[in-house]
């Protein structure tokens, strides 16, 4: 079933703030095996010009994906979320995410396409800090694979 094209351009209200903690950054850096001191040592981060430890580039996905999932699970959109796989991911950074940030995500459906029975939805998430500054924009392409013929 083709998805409702009227959802293209729809923007969802900002999410509640996600507070970035030093220990959460450390946990993420350890999970990806990345020993860069800028992720765990405030002095090392400061020596690079950052006011506190910064997060690895893909850390913010945990925040933006939660918002994107709310969007694609909108029952009115009608996407079969159980068949969804991650197609593409892109980030554009104004500055790195850092400890102490309180981040909100505003998600917009950019495009909806159907290709060979697959439903493809592109969601843009704009991540702002407490002062309203844009920190990072995340683009997530989700593909709901065609259901097998019954």
């Amino acid at each position, binding site marked *: 079933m083709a998805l409702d094209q009227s959802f293209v351009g729809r923007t969802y209200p900002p999410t509640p703030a996600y507070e970035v903690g030093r220990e959460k950054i450390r946990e993420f850096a350890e999970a990806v095996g*990345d020993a860069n001191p800028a992720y765990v040592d405030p002095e090392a981060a400061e020596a690079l010009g950052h006011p506190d430890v910064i997060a690895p580039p893909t850390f913010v996905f945990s925040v933006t994906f939660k918002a994107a999932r709310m969007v694609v699970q909108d029952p009115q959109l009608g996407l079969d979320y159980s068949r969804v796989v991650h*197609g593409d991911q892109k980030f554009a950074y104004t500055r790195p995410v850092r400890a102490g940030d309180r981040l909100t995500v505003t998600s917009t459906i950019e495009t909806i396409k159907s290709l060979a029975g697959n439903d493809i939805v592109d969601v843009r998430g704009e991540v702002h800090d407490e002062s309203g500054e844009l920190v990072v924009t995340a683009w997530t392409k989700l593909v709901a694979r065609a259901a097998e013929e019954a």
Partner: protein
Amino acid sequence: MTAGIAYGSVEVGTELPAQSFPVTRATLVQYAGASGDFNPIHWNEKFAREVGLPDVIAHGMFTMAEAIRVVTDWVGDPGAVVEYGVRFTKPVVVPNDETGASVEVSGKVAALLDDNLVRVDLTATSDGKKVLGMSRAVVRLA
């Protein structure tokens, strides 16, 4: 931002040091916890096979996180990354043994841009297959 590589020291074709990133089932459990992505295809073999996968597969975002390390280890300051995007082309299949799988990542400077920016194109393979496509980062050099 304080990148450790000078813009003037690189040219199109400059290769970044390649790296190999191991990934076992334990790695995936740890990543699931740290990222909050508990999709069972990343830890439950039975579930993975039921949905048509050959075995448990790594989180695409885990592979994306590893690949950019070739860039951040090269420049030193991860805050120098201005843009980063990938396409998930093939899954990284992680068998249930001590060795697991590995992701091999190489990168090279593909374009010199304005404002001390360069574009780095990354190649990521696992078991001989390309697992990321269109994997590109824009980085600000010193």
